[in-house]
């Protein structure tokens, strides 16, 4: 227990709450990877954007400046940038220029450096004067006076960089009335709670700033950016979890109370539901490590599914008070196990899909459903049993008047043998539902799939509203797309940027994009830096001469300030690579961090691409496909949030084929195993199809569509649809097609289940997240559809079919005959495996296989338990425990038998020498020896024990089921010199047996499972028992000696036990009573041995006449 608790704590501790919506999406998609890289590596993703909007440009600028200055005054604010930082820190420009030049191609640097030669320098100064006198360009006027040597005229493409002091497109809209302040926190916002606190702080300060001056109330502030999105999404999700899960639990409690009016079972149910959640969360910690906010929807799904199991159990428990917890478990345990398995399989299939968020959800629900079913089956009823009053307790949801008309009041038996089919009202309800569904689908059509990233967003988000407004006000060419270049090192990325620039130029000239911004101008290039370092040093040496020349040309010393600062910066330049090579200036470093990044895996660059006039989604997708490429370790990705929907929809489409078919096959297989009937499996599928149609019709009428997030409704519908259908069909079977009794025990419980589950899902509709809300609505409708289909439409449909079509006898398994698997194919396979595998492995496998068979065939287990009860003095608990041992023994016996028939030396040793003497003594009489044995232990092994001693043995056997199986068994015995005679095939066979006995040979037969009509009633363990009369008949015909013999497995191996020959009066055998008495005598001899080895008495079909097994 302590270990379990420790595992729980460890699992819960391992679980991380992940609020990043990108982690829900498949990282293999370039668009997702691009967005993830941007988020992970570029500082702009960490910036909070505080916006101000005013009626005029001046007010907006003044407000932005004032607010930025206020925010800067706080210790926790690292930066509040309301305009290009180069305007506020002129010293940063030389640093940036130095950095850019140092990373330029060496030939460009060499060309500039040549301009510093004495003759060229004088020319440059004269040209600068001439230009200053005549140019109309404000840029040249501003530049040349301070940069006569043209350091700011970087060749190539650097003009596109955001270092123009006038260019602050990042901070202002084109009309200047919308301003953006980039604010960065000093602390790291790693956790979503950090982001939430940070945004709360900003919101408070913005409000205070606005209150300080009445004029500021005319300014419209807003907050958006990465931390704002994270804070809103995560806190919203957290609130959802805090709100919807208790709400769902409360709804479940209310419905349970309304239905059963019992507090104790409700309290215990809630405790177990909490335990199931804990177990699942702990398992989630080990299996998935982190749970995304959207995956938290699992909690509600799980509550819904697990409470179903509890309600079905409780309903059965109440309906049949005499059966107790074990009885209720026996009645519905099978259905619960299989419905949990199918639900788990349906949700588990999501783990094979491309969407990590759905995979998490699928794994958590699958694990939770299985553990929930186990917890409910094991722990829900026993405490209630101890405390409950054993008075029959009628189900309040049952219509008593209907019950009175068709069944007994105590509810355990129908009043008469007639079977109550579904009432007419139910049939009309089913028909009405079908008509409505067809009409709705015909009128509105099926709901469509909406491809967008909207479901990933919060339903109401200030951050998104502000972001959208900012996009409208700031962008001149539509929403830009993010362009990422990655590579193993800075040189690889720099080379890739060069290629991309050529491609983007071409696209721009073709009008397919309107503009682009690449950081190639500021991207570090180690090779270039090394090559330029020497020339930079020489430039520093030429400074004194340049000062002289400038003075002569009429320039003041101030004119060379920029040149000197750049050169000094080169002298200070770091020699490292990556971030280590960055200049000291915080402004420059910040600029670099917006577009350049490094980590242990390599280097990254971020650019922007503005689509052309046609900026439709399809055009963007085509652009992404054309610009994106992978070459070895380098990659370029064009990404954007709007592309997510398209790309994910494509992944989902592929998943639907990849997962859908195996999942459907798995569910179908499970259905078959659960029902052991293709007909019932087909009914279940029909029920599912109808539920799906009803859901589609409901969605269509409500105007809902499929989205990326509500897709889990499909496995849920599959799981719950199968769940309800299994429960209902098994209930119909248990009650021989009596709908009212099935409704009373199971249908009513399922109504409660569907109500509670749909309420739980409906609670999700209140969620802060659009996707979760969609998921909740669609799942709630799906649950109700599944219930209506399984409980209303399915029984109605079954009732319309001819009787022979609709009912399967029995309780779900055919237990009157041998298992279906018992046949030639399985036996041959067993023989083949026995020839190859080591004996120890086989024994272990055999025992495991036996246990598995028991678990997968609970109906058969009930038969075994019932067969064992008289041997263990009707002790149910002991019988159950013995049954478990029996299955394991049987598994081991089978592999021994296979090895024996395959020719391996598997023998039984006599328990003691006196055993053999019993045989010798019997043989000496000369009338042959009839060896009789029950189905105890491994009786076949007795053959070689005799044949090895030179004895001839004939085994009497019934024909094995199926073609060829009898021959296989016969060959197996023949391998050891044992002959087989099939009784029942040949009417003269008995004559042959008599002849063999008269010749003094040994004949063996099984006594405890007679052929139909060949048994006589004897008493065994105090109960009537049918035993084969064949032994008595042969004794009467031949006077043979009857030697009871058993071969059982003990610790040391198989032991042959021979009992003293059974004495009889041959003359008395002339009467049937005489033969019955001899048979009784034989069985009485066996009884102690049977009681000693009950777990080796392999009886899998009902053996007690009049018993209920």
């Amino acid at each position, binding site marked *: 227990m302590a270990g379990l608790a420790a595992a729980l704590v460890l699992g819960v501790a391992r679980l991380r709450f992940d609020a990043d919506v990108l982690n829900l999406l498949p990282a293999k998609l370039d668009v997702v990877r691009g967005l993830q890289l941007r988020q992970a590596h570029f500082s702009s993703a960490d910036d909070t954007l505080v916006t101000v909007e005013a009626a005029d440009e001046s007010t907006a600028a003044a407000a932005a400046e004032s607010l930025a200055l206020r925010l800067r005054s706080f210790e926790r604010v690292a930066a509040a940038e309301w305009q290009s930082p180069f305007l506020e820190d002129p010293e940063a420009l030389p640093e940036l220029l130095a950095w850019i030049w140092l990373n330029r191609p060496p030939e460009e640097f060499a060309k500039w450096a040549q301009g510093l030669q004495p003759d060229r320098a004088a020319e440059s100064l004269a040209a600068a004067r001439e230009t200053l*006198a005549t*140019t109309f360009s404000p840029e040249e006027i501003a530049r040349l006076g*301070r940069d006569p040597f043209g350091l700011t005229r970087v060749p190539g493409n650097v003009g596109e960089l955001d270092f123009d002091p006038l260019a602050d497109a990042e901070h202002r809209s084109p009309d*200047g009335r919308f301003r953006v302040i980039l604010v960065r926190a000093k602390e790291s916002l790693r956790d979503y709670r950090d982001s939430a606190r940070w945004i709360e702080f900003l919101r408070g300060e913005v409000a205070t700033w606005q209150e300080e001056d009445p004029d500021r109330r005319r300014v419209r502030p807003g907050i958006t950016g990465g931390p704002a999105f994270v804070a809103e999404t995560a806190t919203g999700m957290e609130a959802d979890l805090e709100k919807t899960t208790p709400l769902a639990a409360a709804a479940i409690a209310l419905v349970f109370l309304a239905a059963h009016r019992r507090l104790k079972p409700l309290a215990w149910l809630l405790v177990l539901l909490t335990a199931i959640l804990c177990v699942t969360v702990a398992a989630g910690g080990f299996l998935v490590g982190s749970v995304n906010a959207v995956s938290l929807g699992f909690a509600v799904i799980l509550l819904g599914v697990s409470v179903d199991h509890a309600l079905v159990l409780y309903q059965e428990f109440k309906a049949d008070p005499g059966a107790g917890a074990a009885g209720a478990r026996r009645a519905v345990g099978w259905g619960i196990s299989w419905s949990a398995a199918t639900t788990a399989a349906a949700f588990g299939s999501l783990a094979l899909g491309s969407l990590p968020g759905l995979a998490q959800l699928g794994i958590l629900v699958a694990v939770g459903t299985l553990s929930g079913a186990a917890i409910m089956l094991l722990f829900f009823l026993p405490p209630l049993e101890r405390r409950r009053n054993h008075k029959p307790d009628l189900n309040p949801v049952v219509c008593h008047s209907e019950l009175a008309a068709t069944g007994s009041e105590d509810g355990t038996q129908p009043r008469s043998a007639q079977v109550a089919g579904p009432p007419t009202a139910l049939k009309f309800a089913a028909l009405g539902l079908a008509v409505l569904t067809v009409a709705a689908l015909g009128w509105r059509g099926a709901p469509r799939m909406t491809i967008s990233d909207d479901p990933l967003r919060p339903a109401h988000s200030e951050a998104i509203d502000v972001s959208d407004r900012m996009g409208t006000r700031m962008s001149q060419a539509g929403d830009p797309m993010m362009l990422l270049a990655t590579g193993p090192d800075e040189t690889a990325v720099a080379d890739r940027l060069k290629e991309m620039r050529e491609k983007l130029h071409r696209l721009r000239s073709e009008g397919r994009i309107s503009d682009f911004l690449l950081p190639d101008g500021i991207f570090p290039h180690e090779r270039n830096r090394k090559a330029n370092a020497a020339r930079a040093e020489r430039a520093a040496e030429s400074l004194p001469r340049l000062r002289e020349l400038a003075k002569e040309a009429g320039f003041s010393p101030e004119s060379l300030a920029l040149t000197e600062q750049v050169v000094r910066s080169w002298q200070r330049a770091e020699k490292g690579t990556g971030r280590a090579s960055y200049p000291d200036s915080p402004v420059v470093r910040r600029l670099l961090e917006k577009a350049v990044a490094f980590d242990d895996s390599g280097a990254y660059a971020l650019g922007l691409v503005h689509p052309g006039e046609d900026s439709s989604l399809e055009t963007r997708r085509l652009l992404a496909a054309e610009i994106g490429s992978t070459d070895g370790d380098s990659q370029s990705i064009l990404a954007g949030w709007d592309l997510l929907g398209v790309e994910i929809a494509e992944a989902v489409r592929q998943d639907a084929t990849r997962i859908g078919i195996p999942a459907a096959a798995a569910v179908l297989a499970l259905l078959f195993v659960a029902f052991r009937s293709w007909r019932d499996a087909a009914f279940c599928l029909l029920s599912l199809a109808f539920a799906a149609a009803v859901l589609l019709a409901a969605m269509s009428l409500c105007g809902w569509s499929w989205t990326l997030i509500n897709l889990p409704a499909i496995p849920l519908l599959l799981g719950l649809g199968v769940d309800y259908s299994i429960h209902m069909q098994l209930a119909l079977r248990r009650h021989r097609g009596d709908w009212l009794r099935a409704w009373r025990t199971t249908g009513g419980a399922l109504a409660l289940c569907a109500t509670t589950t749909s309420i739980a899902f409906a609670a999700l509709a209140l969620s802060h997240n659009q996707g979760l809300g969609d998921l909740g609505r669609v799942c709630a409708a799906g649950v109700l559809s599944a219930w209506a289909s399984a409980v209303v439409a399915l029984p109605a449909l079954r009732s319309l079919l001819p009787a022979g079509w609709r009912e399967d006898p029995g309780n779900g398994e055919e237990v009157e005959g041998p298992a279906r698997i018992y046949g030639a194919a399985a036996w041959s396979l067993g023989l083949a495996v026995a020839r190859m595998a080591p004996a120890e492995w086989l024994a272990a496998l055999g025992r495991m296989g036996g246990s598995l068979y028991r678990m997968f065939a609970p109906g058969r287990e009930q038969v075994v338990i019932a067969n064992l009860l008289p041997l263990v003095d009707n002790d149910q608990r002991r019988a159950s425990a013995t049954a478990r041992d029996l299955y394991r023994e049987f598994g081991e016996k089978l592999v021994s038998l296979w090895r024996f028939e395959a020719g391996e030396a598997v023998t039984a040793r006599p328990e003691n020498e006196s055993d053999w003497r019993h045989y010798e003594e019997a043989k000496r009489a000369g009338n042959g020896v009839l060896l009789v044995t029950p189905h105890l232990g491994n009786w076949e092994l007795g053959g070689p024990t005799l044949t090895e001693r030179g004895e001839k043995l004939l085994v009497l056997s019934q024909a094995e089921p199926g073609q060829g199986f009898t021959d296989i068994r016969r060959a197996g015995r023949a391998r050891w010199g044992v002959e087989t005679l099939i009784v029942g095939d040949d009417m003269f066979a008995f004559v042959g047996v008599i002849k063999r006995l008269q010749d003094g040979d040994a004949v063996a037969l099984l006594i405890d499972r007679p052929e139909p009509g060949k048994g006589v009633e004897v008493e065994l363990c105090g109960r009537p028992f049918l035993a084969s009369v064949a032994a008595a008949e042969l004794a009467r015909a031949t006077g043979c000696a009857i030697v009871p013999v058993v071969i059982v497995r003990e610790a040391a191996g198989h032991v042959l036990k021979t009992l003293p020959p059974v004495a009889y009066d041959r003359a008395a055998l002339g009467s049937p009573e005489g033969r019955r008495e001899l048979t009784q005598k034989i069985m009485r001899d066996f009884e102690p041995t049977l009681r000693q080895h009950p777990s080796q008495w392999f009886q899998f079909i009902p053996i007690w006449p009049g018993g209920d097994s």
Partner: protein
Amino acid sequence: MAFALLTSTLVGFNSLRAAEVDEALLDRWLNAQTNLVSWSAEFTQIRRFPTLTQPLKTQGRVSFKAPSSFRWQLGEPARTIAVRGPEEALIYYPKLKRAERYALGAEATGPWKDAMALLDAGFPRSRAQLEERFEVVAIAASGGTCRLQLRPRGVRARRLLPRMSLEFDVKTLGLSASEFEFPDGSSMRNEYRNLKADPAMADEVFRLSLPAEVTVKEPGAR
């Protein structure tokens, strides 16, 4: 005390009176501008830079035709010709065989448009037009010249050009000088002479035929 009150009242009255006179002068000048159809003058452009020890002086000619056509020529022979129409401005550097074209239409934005607007900054056509773009900081008349100090209203224009002033002759109402002060401490002063009001002016004056070898760039566009 009574003396002090009287003095302050008189001083206040005189200040008020002077301001009224200056405002009237400004209105007269703007009225004269409104009626102007065309205008030409010669000028001396004096550019002062903190980074140059001596100012740079260049002779030039300017022509204006209502409503918004300008032609500026610096140097004789021309070293720079700037022609401005309603939709675009073209600046031609004959010596460098280089020309620059800037869009000025309603859709054009950015610092270049603000810069090109300076070309006609000295020629407001009405009080409303003046005050739409500039805030009048001061008006002062002395020595037969009225000096009008202006500050651009737009934040970005102000960043480019924090202050400018216009000087006109109080008697003739002719523009005598315009001066632009830049944020880096440099300035550009145009001193006009030989002013001609409403001379006959062909449209070709405002069209430039560029030689084939001239490279035309559009710095305002990507």
